[in-house]
């Protein structure tokens, strides 16, 4: 008989903490996958990360690695500063869609184009979470938010931005993939993508970007199960999963 395996949390996860995330939010899954990747690659002692401004601002309380909070949207620039000085370290940013795709669009485009080896985990839940459900650049047409109460109207608010596709037009990035965090079959693929995005940096292979389609039950006004369903039925057709760029 094989030995009994106890399912536990990765060692990179600070065991004594509970997150502040809402029930049904997929930030926890994304955090866990990042922890697993760091642990599997054995890079806990040389990883430096940047928390964004947004729901994940307190991420440094949950992961047992060197961390700093970046200013809103500026994490890719801050990461560039870190990696420039400490090329021997593994540097990643973890950013939401308001942070990365709105106020920080300039910083992410140039960091991806500069192709300094970095890893970017991008959480796309089509809404501003921390500030209470305002419209994001990724909010879908017709989607209601507290600043698009009758639904996003392209004539007024423009169109939802497909960030991965946009960044894939650049020559700089090594790897870009969009994944989802709603069910095991998607989470397994998400894990592989996040692991690859870190492994690329360990092997000095340029900048990698993983967009994670995520749920925000609280601000979507949906129960967690319905939120997963809405993501798969409504978000996925507009934000198709898959590899958008891979230098290999």
């Amino acid at each position, binding site marked *: 008989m094989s030995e009994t395996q106890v399912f536990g949390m990765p060692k990179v996860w600070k065991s004594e903490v509970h997150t502040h995330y809402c029930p049904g939010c997929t930030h926890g899954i994304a955090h866990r996958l990042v922890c697993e990747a760091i642990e599997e690659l054995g890079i*806990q*002692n*040389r990883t*430096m990360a*940047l*928390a964004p401004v947004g729901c994940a*601002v*307190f991420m*440094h309380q949950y992961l*047992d*690695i*060197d*961390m*700093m*909070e*970046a*200013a809103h949207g*500026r994490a890719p*620039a*801050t*990461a*560039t*500063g*870190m*990696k*420039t*000085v*400490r090329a021997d*370290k593994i540097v990643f940013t973890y950013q939401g869609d308001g942070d990365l795709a709105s106020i920080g669009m*300039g*910083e992410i*485009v*140039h960091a991806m184009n500069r192709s300094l080896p970095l890893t970017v985990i991008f959480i796309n839940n089509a809404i501003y979470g921390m500030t209470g459900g305002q419209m994001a650049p990724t909010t879908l047409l017709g989607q209601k938010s507290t600043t698009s109460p009758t639904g996003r109207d392209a004539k007024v608010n423009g169109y939802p931005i497909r960030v991965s596709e946009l960044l894939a037009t650049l020559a700089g990035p090594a790897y870009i993939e969009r994944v989802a965090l709603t069910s095991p079959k998607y989470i397994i693929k998400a894990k592989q993508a996040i692991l690859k995005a870190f492994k690329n940096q360990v092997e000095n292979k340029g900048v990698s970007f993983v967009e994670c389609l995520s749920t925000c039950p609280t601000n979507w006004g949906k129960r967690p199960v319905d939120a997963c369903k809405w993501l798969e039925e409504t978000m996925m057709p507009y934000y198709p999963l898959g590899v958008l760029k891979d230098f290999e």
Partner: protein
Amino acid sequence: MARALMKGTEAIAEAAIQAGCKYFFGYPITPQNEIPEYMSAHLPKAGGTYVQGESEVASINMVMGGASTGYRVMTTSSSPGISLMSEGISYIAMAELPCVIVNISRGGPGLGNILPAQGDYRQATRGGGHGDYHVFVLAPGNLQEAVDFTQDAFDISQKYRMPVMILADGFMGQMMEAVDIKPRKTEDPKSNADWALGWFDERGGKRAVIYSMLMNPDELEAHNTKMQKKYELISSNETRYEHFMVDDAELIVTSYGTTSRVCRSAVSNLRDKGLKVGMVRPLTLWPFPNTAYSDLPKSVKGILSVEMSAGAQMVDDVRLATLCDLPIDTTGRWGGHSPTVRQVEEKCEELLKKAINK
């Protein structure tokens, strides 16, 4: 290095390299472009890296990232660029990270022009960004001082873990003078392992976290109080100024940077005429050298603040330093003009005449 004739911007850049700065992050803006240009040419030879940010906003955040590792990093810009960096400077101050920022200031507000001006005094001495913080501000009056202050700036920023600014107007950046740039002894960045990122193993398997969001008001109040105590310590330890011919002076001219050179000539000329005029020159603009004004001899009947800013800005600090005890007047030029020696002399003569007729 032997004494060499150098341009201000290039002297500042070389001084920084000689003070152990190997990482520069910046964005082009006139009149300071020779600094990033010099850095891009010389840093790779010194084993460092020059990174051109996509904006001043990105550059200051790159500085923050670099500073978080405990290594010596810097950026340089000019007035409109410093405005863009102010958000990042607030974050760096709050996170208590060391870095050096050079402002080769130009005419404003808005785009203004690219000529020398001193209109950034308030921005520099009041922090520039949001929240309760200060930046240590050094104002050189000649290029040897620009060199020495740049090197001091790195040491002070490391000692107190705060952003330090060199505020030098466009003249300082663009003129040439003989300078002697010596290598400065520096601590190994590893000595910052107790707070900096990237020293997980050196700390014995313990991580470092740098954050500025403190939701609990008790924690934020305590952190701010700690920073204020640091500022008080700096005020008592690091304030610098120069007194020039003040001993028996009846009128004090006060100015910093380029205008102090104009004033020095004016004071010397007036002394030749037998007029009792002296000069107080702040070398640190924050902390402001209050004692330089409170310690003036009883003979002083008034002060003239000479500035290249419309309406004058430093004069407010002079009023505070003297507790409004002395009559204070101002003169200057702005918009890219500088006052002439004759203008300062005439203003001094007028004020002395008034004081005698009183």
